[in-house]
């Protein structure tokens, strides 16, 4: 399994831990990644809010590079994924857009380079059975809220990835690690995404709502597959706590970090130290796996002992 890897700008800076853990997990599973040489920004939300031609030309410029490599594209960022897929969708279905993009990039493009998200590759290409065989450290008893956010599953005719209202692939992957995906209603609610900078108060409110719901569903941590979801729930969790002081500290990990741990990879290879809310409480040996209390203090453990 060989892919042209498109990291995207976030994975070079605020989400370097997503980049490191994606590479580590793929290496451990024998999925070969070759970085697209001199890749450039996909334009993200600011491009499609500003100029229709630019919004498609920037992703296409990178897809042309991948086409020269002769490999399908793998990306971890949900926004890059949505922009690359949208560019393909428009080039394939709108002849006028295809001609316009050719004029802007100076090269023809047919929209035929396949684009996959790392989650799609792990669950649907590599396969859950093979993942199960590779698990070295089962995460038994860990209760996880799988948070998909917006752009992994919407709009469905473009990303064609999972059910847009109730996606389950990340839950299945978490279950394959022997952890317990909780049932919760905010799987695909929006975190506020790039409003993080221009309207951070809105993002704190939305992020707080998400973390609170995950906790009400008795999750101990949240896993995400998008750099903006992670930033808005993790780095901005302290801001959400200014609105709701009772909001418990909740680690927010990338799905690749959690999988890396289950595969037995060392924490340093997964960039766990980059989390604002540390994940240590979930894995400390003297802590109970079900409630992050000291093992002796946990009511369910003492019940089990008596």
């Amino acid at each position, binding site marked *: 399994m060989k892919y042209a890897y498109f990291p995207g700008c976030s994975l070079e*800076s605020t989400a370097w831990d997503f980049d490191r853990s994606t590479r580590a997990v793929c290496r451990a599973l024998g999925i070969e990644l070759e970085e697209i040489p001199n890749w450039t920004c996909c334009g993200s939300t600011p491009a499609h809010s*500003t100029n229709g031609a630019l919004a498609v030309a920037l992703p296409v410029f990178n897809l042309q590079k991948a086409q020269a490599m002769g490999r399908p594209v793998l990306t971890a960022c949900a926004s890059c994924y949505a922009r690359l897929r949208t560019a393909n969708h428009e080039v394939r279905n709108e002849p006028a857009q295809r001609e316009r993009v050719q004029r802007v990039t100076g090269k023809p493009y047919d929209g035929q380079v396949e684009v996959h998200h790392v989650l799609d590759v792990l669950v649907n290409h590599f396969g859950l059975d093979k993942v199960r065989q590779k698990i070295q450290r089962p995460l038994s008893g860990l209760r996880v809220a799988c948070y998909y956010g917006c752009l992994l599953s919407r709009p469905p005719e473009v990303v064609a990835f999972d059910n847009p209202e109730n996606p389950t692939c990340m839950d299945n992957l978490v279950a394959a690690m022997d952890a317990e995906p909780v049932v919760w209603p905010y799987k*695909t609610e929006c975190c506020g995404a790039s409003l993080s900078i221009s309207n951070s108060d809105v993002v704190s409110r939305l992020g707080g709502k998400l973390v609170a719901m995950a906790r009400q569903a008795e999750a101990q941590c949240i896993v995400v597959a998008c750099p903006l979801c992670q930033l808005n729930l993790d780095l901005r969790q302290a801001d959400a706590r200014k609105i709701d002081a009772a909001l418990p500290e909740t680690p927010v990990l990338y799905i690749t970090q959690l999988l890396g741990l289950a595969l037995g990879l060392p924490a340093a290879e997964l960039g766990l130290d980059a989390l604002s809310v540390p994940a240590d409480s979930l894995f400390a040996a003297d802590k109970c796996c079900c409630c992050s209390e000291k093992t002796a203090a946990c009511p369910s453990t003492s019940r089990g002992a008596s």
Partner: protein
Amino acid sequence: MRAVENLYQDERPSPLTPLPQAGEGNQIQNPSSKNMPNELTWQNTGFLEEVQRRSGTPVAACFQCHKCSSGCPIGPDMDLLPSQVMRLTHLGLEGEVLTSQSIWMCASCEACTTRCPMEIDIAAVMDALRILAVERKADVPDQRGKQFNRSFLGSVRNHGRVFEAGMMAFYKLRTGELMADVDKVPKMLAKGKLSFLPKRSGSVKEVREIFRRAEEEDKK
């Protein structure tokens, strides 16, 4: 038990209190709107056609089911709900739509687009409205969304990739929000999430050319 035909001849008064009537001192207020005009009149300005052309989606097909507004995560913070933006656009009320804060509050989460029973790509309409608001120099009350986009794309144009620290510096200078999020900087530096040096793509010259040509295309 009464005979069925008697059901239609029941002269007893209704137990419900009368509904409020529109009129002086008794205006029916739309509970969700802060900016929705009370009286709506259709104006043939070509605005609807322009938005439909740019977004490639039939705004006029909207029958006001409000599914977009009910599911919008930003709804509580908007001056016009998505369904109201659709209505005003349909009526050609360019001024009300292009000066609303809502079009800049939209997070492009695509929930509305996914759920619209008429398959209107509402998120694409929001894109078209943002582009039109800048192009027609609409008086945007809060400049932050617009300036974020400008700072972000300026960074991509200069480096081929986003250089966060540089982008944030431009954004802060343009909006005057100098102190926003400065409390995050030490943590981000310590966690290696913020760098003071840009990571430039080797293809930056081609990217600048793409920007130049895309701007030309947009004028066509």
